[in-house]
């Protein structure tokens, strides 16, 4: 669950219904590209203190965006205390150095400096966006937040309460419940199974020292990746990065985590909930980002389950049968696992039929692959749309930070199209056969699906614990 800080503070568990509704849900499309010599002019350099930086300079608008990441993330939570990284992520801007919480928040909001942190499965992410005129102040605030967070007792209590409110809200939300149940089961016993926001028991036991220990172990220069875009020169960027990160310790202290294959292959897991719809997530073992067939898998996934009306799952399950508002498949590559998944919601009486159609499509792609026409169309989209994903400084910095984390080089973005273009029908067929195993899918449902015989019946969301009753 990724939520912005402002929503946690201001909305807290209730988001006012908006009047706007779309023709279909929007998902973030994968990175792709277009025909032109250079997609982006990415400079890669080392700062005087030795930190590698990727930069795209663009002076047209007085805005600077920086995205950075520390490898580690949720896996750095201490045993039995999930939610530490999450609390750190919402407390870093609650005061640092001599600046107390409300003053720190005022300096940010009165100068329109946007500073946010997110604890992810494999990395702790940060994003800074500022107007050029406030560059120095923004840098100082970030440096203080990373090196001298106050973690005042008062702020810890307040943000714990906000996080508890969010957890309680989530536990009634079918979309969250299906994600929690899926992750909790397929990664059972592994760090990836733990709830990122923590649970009610861990919120009761996490101490200030846990938060301090986390920042000391995780925020270092050896696990840091930094990308910038916008109104800033190379010299200014080097100065900013050294000021913000130069004082961090050289080495992080991360316990290694083991590789895991998804569990409960071929099983149906049900969390019963009284709602008119069943939320469904299915998944199986996926493909690593550095696998030579990754690009073929991206093309295959686009044909199978992109948000496109013409994607096979959308066409069969929504367009032809009206069984759902939207269905999407996706590839997820983590440091120590990989998944291919699909998710959708359908009325309780149609759940069985919809899962049946999904499995047929899974099998059909595995058996026959895709047609030349489908592959040509998929490549046209994937190569043509990259520029559309890079229209703001925030999009550019975040895309570059993702490429850094994937171990790619600064010129990769300019090669992306040609790599996608090389994918052949044989590549797609091979990767489909390897990845899409309909009978081995773990099927997780939340709702009251008719005529479904579950192998495992959950009576609570996996991984969630209540405090000990006294």
């Amino acid at each position, binding site marked *: 669950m990724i939520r912005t800080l402002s929503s946690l503070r201001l909305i807290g568990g209730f988001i006012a219904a908006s009047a706007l509704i779309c*023709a279909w849900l929007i998902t973030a499309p994968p990175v792709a590209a277009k025909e032109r010599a250079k997609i982006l002019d990415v400079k890669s350099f080392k700062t005087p203190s030795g930190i590698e930086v990727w930069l795209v300079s663009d002076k047209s608008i007085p805005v600077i965006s920086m995205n950075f990441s520390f490898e580690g993330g949720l896996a750095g939570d201490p045993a039995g205390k999930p939610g530490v990284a999450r609390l750190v992520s919402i407390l870093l801007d609650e005061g640092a150095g001599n600046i107390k919480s409300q003053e720190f928040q005022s300096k940010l909001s009165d100068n329109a400096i946007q500073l946010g942190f997110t604890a992810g499965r494999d990395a702790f992410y940060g994003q800074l966006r500022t107007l050029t005129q406030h560059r120095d102040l923004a840098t100082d605030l970030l440096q203080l937040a990373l090196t001298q967070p106050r973690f005042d007792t008062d702020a810890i209590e307040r943000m714990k309460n906000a996080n508890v409110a969010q957890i309680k809200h989530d536990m009634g939300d079918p979309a969250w419940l299906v994600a929690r149940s899926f992750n909790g089961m397929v990664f059972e016993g592994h760090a990836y199974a733990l709830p990122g926001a923590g649970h009610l028991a861990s919120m009761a036991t996490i101490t200030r020292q846990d938060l301090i220990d986390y920042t000391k172990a995780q925020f270092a220069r050896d696990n840091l990746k930094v990308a910038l875009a916008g109104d800033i020169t190379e010299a200014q960027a080097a100065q900013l990065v050294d000021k913000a990160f130069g004082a961090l310790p050289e080495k992080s202290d991360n316990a290694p985590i083991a590789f895991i294959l998804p569990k409960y292959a071929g099983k149906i897991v049900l969390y019963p909930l009284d709602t008119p719809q069943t939320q469904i997530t299915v998944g199986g073992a996926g493909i690593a980002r550095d696998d030579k067939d990754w690009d073929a898998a991206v093309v295959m996934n686009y044909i199978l389950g992109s948000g496109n009306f013409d994607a096979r799952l959308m066409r069969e399950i929504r367009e032809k049968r009206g069984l759902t508002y939207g269905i999407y498949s996706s590839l997820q590559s983590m440091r120590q696992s990989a998944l291919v998944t699909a998710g959708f919601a359908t009325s309780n009486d149609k759940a069985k039929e919809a899962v049946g159609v999904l499995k047929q499509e899974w099998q059909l792609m595995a058996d026959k692959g895709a047609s030349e026409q489908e592959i040509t169309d998929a490549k046209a989209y994937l190569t043509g749309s990259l520029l559309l994903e890079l229209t703001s400084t925030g999009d550019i910095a975040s895309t570059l930070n993702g490429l850094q984390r994937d171990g790619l080089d600064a010129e990769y973005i300019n090669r992306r199209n040609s790599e996608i273009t090389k994918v052949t029908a044989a590549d797609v067929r091979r990767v489909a056969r390897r990845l899409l195993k309909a009978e081995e899918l773990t099927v997780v449902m939340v709702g009251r699906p008719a005529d479904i015989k579950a192998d495992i019946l959950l009576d609570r969301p996996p991984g969630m614990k209540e405090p000990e009753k006294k």
Partner: protein
Amino acid sequence: MRLLGSVFVFAFLVLLLPAPAAAEKIFNAQTFTLDNGLKVVVIPNHRAPVVTHMVWYKFGGADETPGKSGIAHFLEHLMFKGTPKVPDGQFSRTVKKLGGNDNAFTSQDFTAYYQNVPLAHLEKVMEMEADRMKNLVLREEEVASERQVIIEERRLRVDSRPQARFQEQMMSTLFINHPYGVPVIGWLHEMRELTREDAFDQYNEWYAPNNAILIVSGDVTAKELEPMAKKHYGPIPAQTVPERKRTRAAPIVAAPRLVMEDARIGQPVIMKTWRAPRGEDALDMLAEILGGTSTSRLYKRLVVERKLAVSAGANYEPLSLSETTFSLYATPAPGVTVTDLEAALGQEIALLLDKGVTLEELNAAKGRKRANLTYYLDSLQGPALLFGRVLTSGFGIDHVENIVTRLEKLGIDDIGQAAATVFKGEDFPVTGILLPKAPPPAKDAKGATP
């Protein structure tokens, strides 16, 4: 799973509504109007060779024939089915092949369609969008299956979420005798009855160049766009379009109090919503001062200082063709009742009415609005969405471009007067309370303890 998105993206836009950076124009939008009445807005942005192309119809949920709730949104879905030239769902497929993305969205006051594409393909999507303004073809079986899709969409967005069902009830209570009381997605029992003919009735009546606005943002100028727009949209004849009617909402003479208890509500929430005039900069500033950030009054007083709430805020939606709403909301801290929190909200309102806001608060709020506006420029779609909303709400281009000048003129007395029109008006607010429902006491409840 990333199955929820756009709604909040647009909601965010509304919350951050603009406030710019000097007396000069912010976006330098260029406009012209074709002979058939199509208004065109061009927002140049030359950072990358890409454009967003949008057509906004001045037709939304609030314009529907009574008893046909949801038809504006249903028609929006059906618009992707096809025309003789672009049949069988090829619209979106073609956009994808061009390396573009497309979608559409419907509100009470508008229906909008867009494509984001590389500049080289602007004319192609323009040709297709102009084509479907008049040449829609619908087969009965497509309509039947799409009706199921919108019903599943309602179940996903509303019926599976007690908070969303509650919000529908709030709006119905606020907007008595006014179309905003009817949800855009439609009431389920009326959605089930919507037909192909219903869709065509609305399409034939409202979809016309003189009832639409074309907005293009990106690597293009008005001079470059004009011949293209003339070629593709120019030949579509103007027609008589009905007047957009918004009945005046009836007075709220008794204090409505809505309470919903549900096992799936994890946290209590209290909200108070007033009907409010649209387009008021003073109310926009008031919402910012009361509840726009984590240093604004409600958060500072109720969450940080008095520790009565875990979250608190305010919201005002300025862009609307008719009346709009002003809301306060809060979630109680552990051990605090919603009644206590309601009293605390009441104290904040009383304090505001008594003492007004300070010059310092107002200046900070103006500064934040101005600074945040620059971020709109760092985006392809943001300015286009803003102009579309402004124009379909019946405001002009200047409403956006001149906002800095207007804000400069606002004083603390203006904020005080605006607060009085909302909080001391004749209509009662609607108070909404969401409460978790304890599961029935079960001796055999497995997993009730760890």
